[in-house]
């Protein structure tokens, strides 16, 4: 069975939900600890959301230097699929696996909403079960979610098709180019602010076409990586 690691840093909140999402998708979740540089032979890694190290200094800044991240950065360079969600996305930018950074929401408020997204790139390791241009809804909840990068970086991301998700209808935090998620050049590393792991089971996720809390659009992130790994 495909093994997907879920990293826990001090202050991580959503590791249990991410592990549950991995299981619902049909893979085996493997707990990875921030202080252990052993990836336990996992086939992919999820960096879940939360407030690792209390968001001290900058969100994700301390986590970047955790022993497990040295191994994750190495393995990502060799093609290991890595998904960073919310705080995990911040860890990936601080680790230089993904370009840009996140600063405080432009309106200064914490935001929690069911967020509509457009899937712009369905060729990454984590999006191949979507169709390009598809609209999905998954929860968004953050304080430091405003994606920023300099003009040259934004132009490169757009030119190379590396904007993976864009906010639709509402830009909830002032992100440049409505960017909700990006990938690296190889497409194995994906980071996004919204939370797919909170939309994987009927009864617990956002509202969907079939009624209240029926939305399970997040599940296909996790089935996508299985499609990628199994071929």
């Amino acid at each position, binding site marked *: 069975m495909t093994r997907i690691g879920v990293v826990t840093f001090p202050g991580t909140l959503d590791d249990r939900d991410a592990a549950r999402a991995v299981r619902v998708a049909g893979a085996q979740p493997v707990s990875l600890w921030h202080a252990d540089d052993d990836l336990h032979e996992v086939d992919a890694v999820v960096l879940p959301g939360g407030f690792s190290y209390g968001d001290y*200094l900058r969100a994700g800044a301390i986590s970047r230097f955790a022993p497990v991240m040295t191994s994750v950065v190495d393995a990502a360079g060799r093609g290991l699929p890595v998904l960073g969600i919310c705080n995990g996305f911040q860890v990936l930018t601080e680790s230089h696996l993904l370009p840009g950074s996140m*600063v405080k929401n*432009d309106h*200064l408020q914490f935001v929690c909403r069911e967020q509509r997204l457009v899937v712009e790139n369905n060729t990454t390791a984590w999006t191949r079960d979507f169709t390009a241009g598809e609209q999905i809804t998954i929860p968004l909840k953050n304080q430091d979610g405003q994606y*920023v990068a300099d003009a040259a970086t934004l132009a490169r991301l757009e030119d190379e098709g590396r904007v993976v998700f864009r906010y639709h209808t509402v830009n909830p935090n002032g992100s440049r180019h409505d960017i909700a998620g990006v990938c690296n050049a190889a497409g194995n590393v994906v980071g996004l602010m919204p939370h797919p792991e909170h939309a994987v089971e009927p009864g617990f996720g956002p509202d969907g076409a079939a009624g209240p809390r029926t939305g399970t659009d997040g599940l296909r992130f996790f089935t996508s990586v299985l499609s990628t790994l199994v071929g």
Partner: protein
Amino acid sequence: MGRVVVDVMPKPEILDPQGKAVARALPRLGIDGFVTVRQGKRFELEVDGPVTDDVLAAARQAATTLLSNPVIEDVVRVADESAA
């Protein structure tokens, strides 16, 4: 004891929402006339002994690798501020 001070500021082109919130609060205290406020960070790094060139070089390395993120912040000062 030697002390190195590192000042980090958000880049000018990056919106500084915290600074803007402070700027909006000042007039409520009756403090008028400050048209913009930008909020940064000050780090105090202390060593046993004097601040040598090596200590300053290490502080500069810390400033650019951990204390700041070059995408959103500038290191505006790394200085020996040891008490006389």
